[in-house]
Protein backbone atom coordinates (compact mmCIF):
# COMPACT_ATOMS: atom_id res chain seq x y z
CA UNK A 1 0.00 0.00 0.00
CA UNK A 2 1.38 3.39 -0.90
CA UNK A 3 1.17 6.60 1.04
CA UNK A 4 -0.87 8.09 -1.75
CA UNK A 5 -3.99 6.06 -1.11
CA UNK A 6 -4.60 7.07 2.46
CA UNK A 7 -4.14 10.49 4.01
CA UNK A 8 -3.67 9.05 7.46
CA UNK A 9 -0.51 7.26 6.43
CA UNK A 10 1.38 10.38 5.69
CA UNK A 11 1.66 13.43 7.86
CA UNK A 12 2.33 16.35 5.58
CA UNK A 13 4.29 19.31 6.83
CA UNK A 14 3.57 21.41 3.79
CA UNK A 15 1.89 24.25 5.60
CA UNK A 16 4.65 25.00 8.03
CA UNK A 17 7.96 23.50 7.03
CA UNK A 18 10.11 23.03 4.00
CA UNK A 19 13.63 21.72 3.41
CA UNK A 20 16.45 22.86 1.14
CA UNK A 21 16.75 20.52 -1.85
CA UNK A 22 20.51 20.97 -1.99
CA UNK A 23 21.54 20.69 1.67
CA UNK A 24 18.43 19.39 3.49
CA UNK A 25 18.31 22.26 6.02
CA UNK A 26 14.86 22.59 7.58
CA UNK A 27 12.95 25.87 7.46
CA UNK A 28 9.69 27.44 8.31
CA UNK A 29 8.05 28.09 4.95
CA UNK A 30 8.59 31.68 3.84
CA UNK A 31 5.77 34.05 3.01
CA UNK A 32 6.85 35.84 -0.13
CA UNK A 33 5.66 38.85 -2.03
CA UNK A 34 5.41 38.48 -5.81
CA UNK A 35 8.86 38.85 -7.33
CA UNK A 36 10.65 37.78 -4.14
CA UNK A 37 13.06 34.91 -3.76
CA UNK A 38 14.03 33.02 -0.62
CA UNK A 39 17.52 31.54 -0.56
CA UNK A 40 18.98 28.93 1.72
CA UNK A 41 21.32 30.66 4.21
CA UNK A 42 23.51 27.59 4.43
CA UNK A 43 24.14 26.73 0.77
CA UNK A 44 22.58 29.58 -1.18
CA UNK A 45 20.10 27.50 -3.19
CA UNK A 46 16.93 29.25 -4.33
CA UNK A 47 14.26 27.72 -2.12
CA UNK A 48 11.15 29.56 -3.12
CA UNK A 49 10.41 32.09 -5.73
CA UNK A 50 7.14 33.84 -6.31
CA UNK A 51 6.79 35.04 -9.84
CA UNK A 52 5.03 38.24 -10.72
CA UNK A 53 3.41 36.60 -13.69
CA UNK A 54 0.46 34.27 -13.44
CA UNK A 55 -0.78 31.23 -15.23
CA UNK A 56 -2.20 33.32 -18.10
CA UNK A 57 1.28 34.31 -19.24
CA UNK A 58 2.55 30.75 -18.94
CA UNK A 59 -0.35 29.46 -21.01
CA UNK A 60 0.02 32.17 -23.66
CA UNK A 61 3.74 31.40 -23.94
CA UNK A 62 3.11 27.67 -24.17
CA UNK A 63 0.69 28.29 -27.03
CA UNK A 64 3.15 30.63 -28.79
CA UNK A 65 5.89 28.02 -28.40
CA UNK A 66 3.70 25.31 -29.90
CA UNK A 67 2.92 27.39 -32.99
CA UNK A 68 6.57 28.40 -33.44
CA UNK A 69 7.64 24.80 -32.95
CA UNK A 70 5.38 23.65 -35.78
CA UNK A 71 6.70 26.39 -38.08
CA UNK A 72 10.28 25.60 -37.11
CA UNK A 73 9.87 21.99 -38.17
CA UNK A 74 7.63 22.44 -41.20
CA UNK A 75 9.89 24.87 -43.08
CA UNK A 76 13.53 24.68 -44.17
CA UNK A 77 16.19 26.14 -41.91
CA UNK A 78 18.66 27.17 -44.54
CA UNK A 79 18.89 27.35 -48.31
CA UNK A 80 22.33 26.92 -49.77
CA UNK A 81 23.53 27.79 -53.22
CA UNK A 82 26.78 26.29 -54.52
CA UNK A 83 27.55 27.03 -58.16
CA UNK A 84 23.90 27.25 -59.15
CA UNK A 85 22.79 24.15 -57.30
CA UNK A 86 20.28 24.82 -54.56
CA UNK A 87 19.84 22.72 -51.47
CA UNK A 88 17.47 23.15 -48.56
CA UNK A 89 17.63 21.50 -45.20
CA UNK A 90 15.53 21.37 -42.06
CA UNK A 91 16.08 19.85 -38.64
CA UNK A 92 14.21 16.70 -39.59
CA UNK A 93 16.18 16.20 -42.82
CA UNK A 94 19.33 16.43 -40.73
CA UNK A 95 18.04 13.74 -38.39
CA UNK A 96 17.05 11.56 -41.36
CA UNK A 97 20.40 12.05 -43.06
CA UNK A 98 22.30 11.11 -39.90
CA UNK A 99 20.20 7.97 -39.72
CA UNK A 100 20.80 7.04 -43.34
CA UNK A 101 24.55 7.53 -42.88
CA UNK A 102 24.37 4.82 -40.24
CA UNK A 103 24.68 7.01 -37.15
CA UNK A 104 21.38 6.09 -35.56
CA UNK A 105 22.68 6.90 -32.06
CA UNK A 106 23.29 10.59 -32.82
CA UNK A 107 20.17 10.69 -34.96
CA UNK A 108 18.07 9.44 -32.03
CA UNK A 109 19.83 11.74 -29.57
CA UNK A 110 19.22 14.83 -31.71
CA UNK A 111 15.63 13.78 -32.31
CA UNK A 112 14.98 13.45 -28.58
CA UNK A 113 16.63 16.67 -27.40
CA UNK A 114 15.51 19.01 -30.19
CA UNK A 115 12.16 17.54 -31.21
CA UNK A 116 10.60 15.05 -28.83
CA UNK A 117 11.52 16.55 -25.45
CA UNK A 118 10.57 20.18 -26.29
CA UNK A 119 7.31 19.05 -27.90
CA UNK A 120 6.41 16.76 -25.01
CA UNK A 121 7.26 19.50 -22.53
CA UNK A 122 4.98 22.02 -24.27
CA UNK A 123 2.11 19.54 -24.62
CA UNK A 124 2.39 18.41 -21.00
CA UNK A 125 2.37 21.99 -19.76
CA UNK A 126 -0.65 22.75 -21.89
CA UNK A 127 -2.46 19.69 -20.64
CA UNK A 128 -1.92 20.66 -17.01
CA UNK A 129 -2.43 24.41 -17.20
CA UNK A 130 -5.37 24.73 -19.60
CA UNK A 131 -8.05 22.92 -17.53
CA UNK A 132 -6.62 24.38 -14.34
CA UNK A 133 -6.82 27.94 -15.60
CA UNK A 134 -10.07 27.81 -17.58
CA UNK A 135 -12.20 25.47 -15.50
CA UNK A 136 -10.38 25.28 -12.21
CA UNK A 137 -10.21 21.55 -12.75
CA UNK A 138 -7.39 19.10 -12.43
CA UNK A 139 -6.94 17.09 -15.60
CA UNK A 140 -6.75 13.30 -15.11
CA UNK A 141 -3.24 12.30 -13.98
CA UNK A 142 -2.23 15.98 -14.00
CA UNK A 143 0.28 15.46 -11.17
CA UNK A 144 2.05 12.73 -13.10
CA UNK A 145 2.10 14.82 -16.28
CA UNK A 146 3.42 17.89 -14.48
CA UNK A 147 6.12 15.73 -12.91
CA UNK A 148 7.14 14.65 -16.41
CA UNK A 149 7.20 18.28 -17.53
CA UNK A 150 9.74 19.09 -14.83
CA UNK A 151 11.83 16.02 -15.53
CA UNK A 152 11.87 16.66 -19.27
CA UNK A 153 13.28 20.16 -18.84
CA UNK A 154 17.01 19.40 -18.91
CA UNK A 155 16.55 17.36 -22.09
CA UNK A 156 14.79 20.04 -24.12
CA UNK A 157 17.68 21.86 -25.76
CA UNK A 158 16.11 24.39 -28.09
CA UNK A 159 18.41 27.24 -27.05
CA UNK A 160 21.53 25.10 -27.43
CA UNK A 161 20.31 24.05 -30.87
CA UNK A 162 19.90 27.71 -31.82
CA UNK A 163 23.56 28.32 -31.00
CA UNK A 164 24.44 25.24 -33.05
CA UNK A 165 22.61 26.77 -36.03
CA UNK A 166 24.61 29.95 -35.59
CA UNK A 167 27.94 28.10 -35.64
CA UNK A 168 26.85 26.06 -38.66
CA UNK A 169 25.83 29.20 -40.57
CA UNK A 170 29.21 30.81 -39.94
CA UNK A 171 31.04 27.64 -41.00
CA UNK A 172 29.02 27.43 -44.21
CA UNK A 173 29.17 31.11 -45.03
CA UNK A 174 32.52 30.99 -46.87
CA UNK A 175 31.55 27.77 -48.59
CA UNK A 176 28.37 28.91 -50.30
CA UNK A 177 25.69 31.55 -50.54
CA UNK A 178 23.19 31.06 -47.73
CA UNK A 179 19.61 32.22 -47.34
CA UNK A 180 17.95 31.81 -43.96
CA UNK A 181 14.61 30.00 -44.07
CA UNK A 182 11.39 30.55 -42.15
CA UNK A 183 12.40 27.83 -39.68
CA UNK A 184 15.50 29.77 -38.67
CA UNK A 185 13.43 32.74 -37.52
CA UNK A 186 10.89 30.40 -35.93
CA UNK A 187 13.63 28.65 -33.96
CA UNK A 188 14.92 32.00 -32.74
CA UNK A 189 11.40 32.91 -31.60
CA UNK A 190 10.91 29.48 -30.05
CA UNK A 191 14.09 29.88 -28.06
CA UNK A 192 12.83 33.17 -26.63
CA UNK A 193 9.30 31.99 -25.90
CA UNK A 194 10.45 28.78 -24.22
CA UNK A 195 12.99 30.63 -22.07
CA UNK A 196 10.33 33.19 -21.12
CA UNK A 197 7.90 30.37 -20.35
CA UNK A 198 10.42 28.73 -18.03
CA UNK A 199 11.11 32.04 -16.32
CA UNK A 200 7.45 32.84 -15.79
CA UNK A 201 6.13 29.48 -14.70
CA UNK A 202 5.63 29.38 -10.95
CA UNK A 203 5.86 25.66 -10.33
CA UNK A 204 5.13 25.96 -6.62
CA UNK A 205 1.89 27.72 -7.48
CA UNK A 206 0.95 25.01 -9.98
CA UNK A 207 1.68 22.27 -7.42
CA UNK A 208 -0.43 24.03 -4.83
CA UNK A 209 -3.32 24.44 -7.23
CA UNK A 210 -3.05 20.83 -8.31
CA UNK A 211 -3.45 19.90 -4.66
CA UNK A 212 -6.62 21.91 -4.30
CA UNK A 213 -7.93 22.83 -7.77
CA UNK A 214 -11.07 24.50 -6.43
CA UNK A 215 -9.09 27.48 -5.16
CA UNK A 216 -7.89 28.18 -8.65
CA UNK A 217 -11.24 29.62 -9.67
CA UNK A 218 -11.42 32.08 -6.84
CA UNK A 219 -8.64 34.45 -7.87
Amino acid sequence: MTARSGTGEYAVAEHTLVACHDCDLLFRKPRLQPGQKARCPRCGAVLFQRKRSGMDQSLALALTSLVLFMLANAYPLLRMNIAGRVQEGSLLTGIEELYSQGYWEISALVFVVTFLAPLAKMLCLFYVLLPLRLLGLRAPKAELVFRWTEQLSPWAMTEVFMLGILVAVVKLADLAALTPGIALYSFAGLMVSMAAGDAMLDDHEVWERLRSPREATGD
Partner: protein
Amino acid sequence: MTKHATTAAEAGYLLCHCCHLLGRPEPGSVRPRCPRCGAVLHRRKPDSLARTWALTLTAYILYIPANLLPIMTVTMSGRGEPDTILSGVKELIVGGMWPLALLVFFASITVPVLKLLVLTFLLLSVQFGSRWRPWERTVLYRLTESVGRWSMIDIFVITILVAVVELGALATIEAGPGAVAFGGVVVVTMFAAMSFDPRLIWDRMAPKDGEVSSHSRPEGAYRMQR
Protein backbone atom coordinates in the same frame (compact mmCIF):
# COMPACT_ATOMS: atom_id res chain seq x y z
CA MET B 1 11.74 19.24 18.08
CA THR B 2 15.08 17.76 19.13
CA LYS B 3 18.17 19.70 20.18
CA HIS B 4 19.73 20.20 16.78
CA ALA B 5 17.10 19.13 14.28
CA THR B 6 18.63 21.18 11.57
CA THR B 7 18.04 18.94 8.58
CA ALA B 8 14.89 17.35 7.27
CA ALA B 9 16.45 13.90 7.55
CA GLU B 10 17.31 14.38 11.22
CA ALA B 11 13.76 15.51 11.94
CA GLY B 12 12.34 12.48 10.16
CA TYR B 13 11.00 14.35 7.16
CA LEU B 14 11.44 13.49 3.50
CA LEU B 15 11.57 16.14 0.81
CA CYS B 16 10.02 15.24 -2.52
CA HIS B 17 12.78 15.78 -5.09
CA CYS B 18 10.21 16.55 -7.72
CA CYS B 19 7.57 18.88 -6.31
CA HIS B 20 9.46 19.84 -3.12
CA LEU B 21 6.69 18.89 -0.73
CA LEU B 22 7.95 18.06 2.74
CA GLY B 23 6.33 15.20 4.57
CA ARG B 24 6.85 12.62 7.28
CA PRO B 25 6.19 9.08 6.10
CA GLU B 26 4.67 6.58 8.50
CA PRO B 27 7.33 4.44 10.19
CA GLY B 28 6.13 1.26 8.47
CA SER B 29 5.98 2.39 4.86
CA VAL B 30 8.49 0.60 2.64
CA ARG B 31 8.46 2.68 -0.50
CA PRO B 32 6.86 5.97 0.50
CA ARG B 33 5.47 8.11 -2.31
CA CYS B 34 4.86 11.81 -2.38
CA PRO B 35 1.18 12.41 -1.63
CA ARG B 36 1.10 15.34 -4.04
CA CYS B 37 2.96 14.28 -7.18
CA GLY B 38 3.38 10.54 -6.65
CA ALA B 39 7.18 10.43 -6.99
CA VAL B 40 8.98 7.80 -4.92
CA LEU B 41 10.57 9.47 -1.91
CA HIS B 42 14.12 8.83 -0.77
CA ARG B 43 16.03 10.19 2.14
CA ARG B 44 18.92 10.67 -0.28
CA LYS B 45 19.09 9.78 -3.96
CA PRO B 46 19.45 5.97 -4.06
CA ASP B 47 23.03 4.66 -4.45
CA SER B 48 24.06 8.17 -5.35
CA LEU B 49 27.81 7.65 -4.97
CA ALA B 50 27.99 4.30 -6.75
CA ARG B 51 25.86 5.47 -9.66
CA THR B 52 27.71 8.75 -10.08
CA TRP B 53 31.08 6.97 -9.95
CA ALA B 54 29.97 4.48 -12.59
CA LEU B 55 28.63 7.18 -14.91
CA THR B 56 31.65 9.44 -14.42
CA LEU B 57 34.10 6.62 -15.19
CA THR B 58 32.06 5.70 -18.28
CA ALA B 59 32.30 9.30 -19.43
CA TYR B 60 36.11 9.27 -18.94
CA ILE B 61 36.38 6.20 -21.14
CA LEU B 62 34.10 7.64 -23.84
CA TYR B 63 36.03 10.88 -23.75
CA ILE B 64 39.08 9.26 -25.41
CA PRO B 65 37.40 8.21 -28.70
CA ALA B 66 35.33 11.40 -28.60
CA ASN B 67 38.53 13.42 -29.05
CA LEU B 68 40.63 11.05 -31.15
CA LEU B 69 38.08 9.93 -33.75
CA PRO B 70 36.73 12.31 -36.41
CA ILE B 71 33.35 13.84 -35.64
CA MET B 72 32.72 14.56 -39.32
CA THR B 73 34.32 14.46 -42.73
CA VAL B 74 33.85 17.36 -45.13
CA THR B 75 34.47 16.51 -48.77
CA MET B 76 34.78 19.45 -51.15
CA SER B 77 35.18 18.71 -54.85
CA GLY B 78 36.62 15.29 -54.22
CA ARG B 79 39.05 16.26 -51.47
CA GLY B 80 38.00 15.23 -48.02
CA GLU B 81 39.47 15.66 -44.60
CA PRO B 82 38.24 14.31 -41.29
CA ASP B 83 37.57 16.82 -38.53
CA THR B 84 38.04 16.10 -34.84
CA ILE B 85 36.58 18.35 -32.16
CA LEU B 86 39.89 20.14 -31.70
CA SER B 87 40.58 20.55 -35.43
CA GLY B 88 37.11 22.06 -35.82
CA VAL B 89 38.05 24.74 -33.31
CA LYS B 90 41.41 25.25 -35.03
CA GLU B 91 39.65 25.75 -38.33
CA LEU B 92 37.50 28.50 -36.83
CA ILE B 93 40.60 30.23 -35.47
CA VAL B 94 42.37 30.00 -38.86
CA GLY B 95 39.25 31.45 -40.45
CA GLY B 96 39.54 34.41 -38.10
CA MET B 97 36.30 33.67 -36.29
CA TRP B 98 37.62 34.21 -32.78
CA PRO B 99 34.41 34.69 -30.81
CA LEU B 100 32.89 31.59 -32.35
CA ALA B 101 36.09 29.59 -31.85
CA LEU B 102 36.04 30.56 -28.18
CA LEU B 103 32.38 29.61 -27.87
CA VAL B 104 32.91 26.19 -29.45
CA PHE B 105 36.11 25.63 -27.47
CA PHE B 106 34.29 26.45 -24.25
CA ALA B 107 31.23 24.32 -25.02
CA SER B 108 32.94 21.25 -26.50
CA ILE B 109 36.25 21.09 -24.66
CA THR B 110 36.25 23.19 -21.48
CA VAL B 111 32.78 22.24 -20.25
CA PRO B 112 33.09 18.44 -20.58
CA VAL B 113 36.60 18.36 -19.07
CA LEU B 114 35.69 20.64 -16.18
CA LYS B 115 32.49 18.72 -15.59
CA LEU B 116 34.35 15.42 -15.31
CA LEU B 117 37.00 16.92 -13.03
CA VAL B 118 34.42 18.61 -10.80
CA LEU B 119 32.34 15.44 -10.51
CA THR B 120 35.45 13.44 -9.60
CA PHE B 121 36.44 16.04 -7.04
CA LEU B 122 32.95 16.10 -5.49
CA LEU B 123 32.81 12.29 -5.39
CA LEU B 124 36.23 12.05 -3.74
CA SER B 125 35.43 14.77 -1.23
CA VAL B 126 32.20 13.03 -0.18
CA GLN B 127 33.86 9.62 -0.17
CA PHE B 128 36.56 10.81 2.21
CA GLY B 129 34.06 12.68 4.38
CA SER B 130 35.59 16.05 3.72
CA ARG B 131 34.27 19.02 5.69
CA TRP B 132 36.09 21.51 3.51
CA ARG B 133 34.08 24.44 2.10
CA PRO B 134 30.68 22.79 1.67
CA TRP B 135 29.11 25.98 0.32
CA GLU B 136 31.66 26.28 -2.49
CA ARG B 137 31.30 22.61 -3.35
CA THR B 138 27.51 22.94 -3.55
CA VAL B 139 27.84 25.92 -5.87
CA LEU B 140 30.28 23.93 -8.02
CA TYR B 141 27.69 21.17 -8.20
CA ARG B 142 24.92 23.52 -9.25
CA LEU B 143 27.18 24.98 -11.95
CA THR B 144 28.09 21.57 -13.38
CA GLU B 145 24.47 20.55 -13.44
CA SER B 146 23.29 23.60 -15.34
CA VAL B 147 26.12 24.07 -17.82
CA GLY B 148 26.46 20.51 -19.14
CA ARG B 149 23.83 20.66 -21.86
CA TRP B 150 25.72 23.37 -23.74
CA SER B 151 28.29 20.78 -24.83
CA MET B 152 25.69 19.56 -27.30
CA ILE B 153 26.49 22.45 -29.71
CA ASP B 154 28.94 20.45 -31.84
CA ILE B 155 26.44 17.63 -32.30
CA PHE B 156 23.86 20.14 -33.51
CA VAL B 157 26.35 21.75 -35.88
CA ILE B 158 26.95 18.35 -37.48
CA THR B 159 23.19 17.75 -37.81
CA ILE B 160 22.64 21.04 -39.62
CA LEU B 161 25.68 20.67 -41.86
CA VAL B 162 24.57 17.18 -42.81
CA ALA B 163 21.05 18.46 -43.51
CA VAL B 164 22.11 21.30 -45.77
CA VAL B 165 25.24 20.08 -47.52
CA GLU B 166 24.32 17.20 -49.73
CA LEU B 167 25.38 18.28 -53.16
CA GLY B 168 26.59 15.06 -54.74
CA ALA B 169 30.00 15.46 -56.34
CA LEU B 170 30.42 19.09 -55.24
CA ALA B 171 30.37 18.68 -51.52
CA THR B 172 29.31 16.15 -48.92
CA ILE B 173 29.47 16.08 -45.18
CA GLU B 174 29.40 12.83 -43.30
CA ALA B 175 29.16 12.33 -39.58
CA GLY B 176 32.00 10.44 -37.90
CA PRO B 177 32.23 7.90 -35.07
CA GLY B 178 33.74 10.54 -32.77
CA ALA B 179 30.36 12.28 -32.73
CA VAL B 180 28.70 9.17 -31.29
CA ALA B 181 31.28 9.01 -28.51
CA PHE B 182 31.02 12.73 -27.87
CA GLY B 183 27.21 12.61 -27.68
CA GLY B 184 27.68 9.74 -25.24
CA VAL B 185 29.98 11.85 -23.05
CA VAL B 186 27.41 14.66 -22.88
CA VAL B 187 24.48 12.39 -22.05
CA VAL B 188 26.39 10.27 -19.53
CA THR B 189 27.78 13.33 -17.70
CA MET B 190 24.27 14.80 -17.55
CA PHE B 191 23.02 11.60 -15.92
CA ALA B 192 26.04 11.62 -13.61
CA ALA B 193 25.27 15.14 -12.41
CA MET B 194 21.62 14.20 -11.89
CA SER B 195 22.47 11.13 -9.83
CA PHE B 196 24.82 13.01 -7.49
CA ASP B 197 23.11 14.13 -4.30
CA PRO B 198 24.53 17.45 -3.02
CA ARG B 199 22.99 16.76 0.39
CA LEU B 200 25.74 14.16 0.91
CA ILE B 201 28.19 17.06 1.11
CA TRP B 202 26.20 18.51 4.00
CA ASP B 203 25.56 15.24 5.77
CA ARG B 204 29.20 15.28 6.89
CA MET B 205 28.67 18.72 8.36
CA ALA B 206 26.16 17.48 10.94
CA PRO B 207 27.38 18.38 14.44
CA LYS B 208 28.89 15.46 16.29
CA ASP B 209 28.06 14.92 19.96
CA GLY B 210 29.25 17.77 22.12
CA GLU B 211 30.14 19.91 19.15
CA VAL B 212 28.45 23.16 18.27
CA SER B 213 27.83 23.51 14.57
CA SER B 214 28.70 26.83 13.05
CA HIS B 215 26.33 26.12 10.22
CA SER B 216 23.04 25.50 11.93
CA ARG B 217 20.84 28.52 12.18
CA PRO B 218 17.44 29.02 13.72
CA GLU B 219 14.56 27.91 11.58
CA GLY B 220 13.09 30.48 9.32
CA ALA B 221 16.27 32.43 8.76
CA TYR B 222 16.19 32.55 5.00
CA ARG B 223 17.58 35.34 2.97
CA MET B 224 15.04 37.35 1.03
CA GLN B 225 15.88 38.77 -2.33
CA ARG B 226 14.14 41.11 -4.65
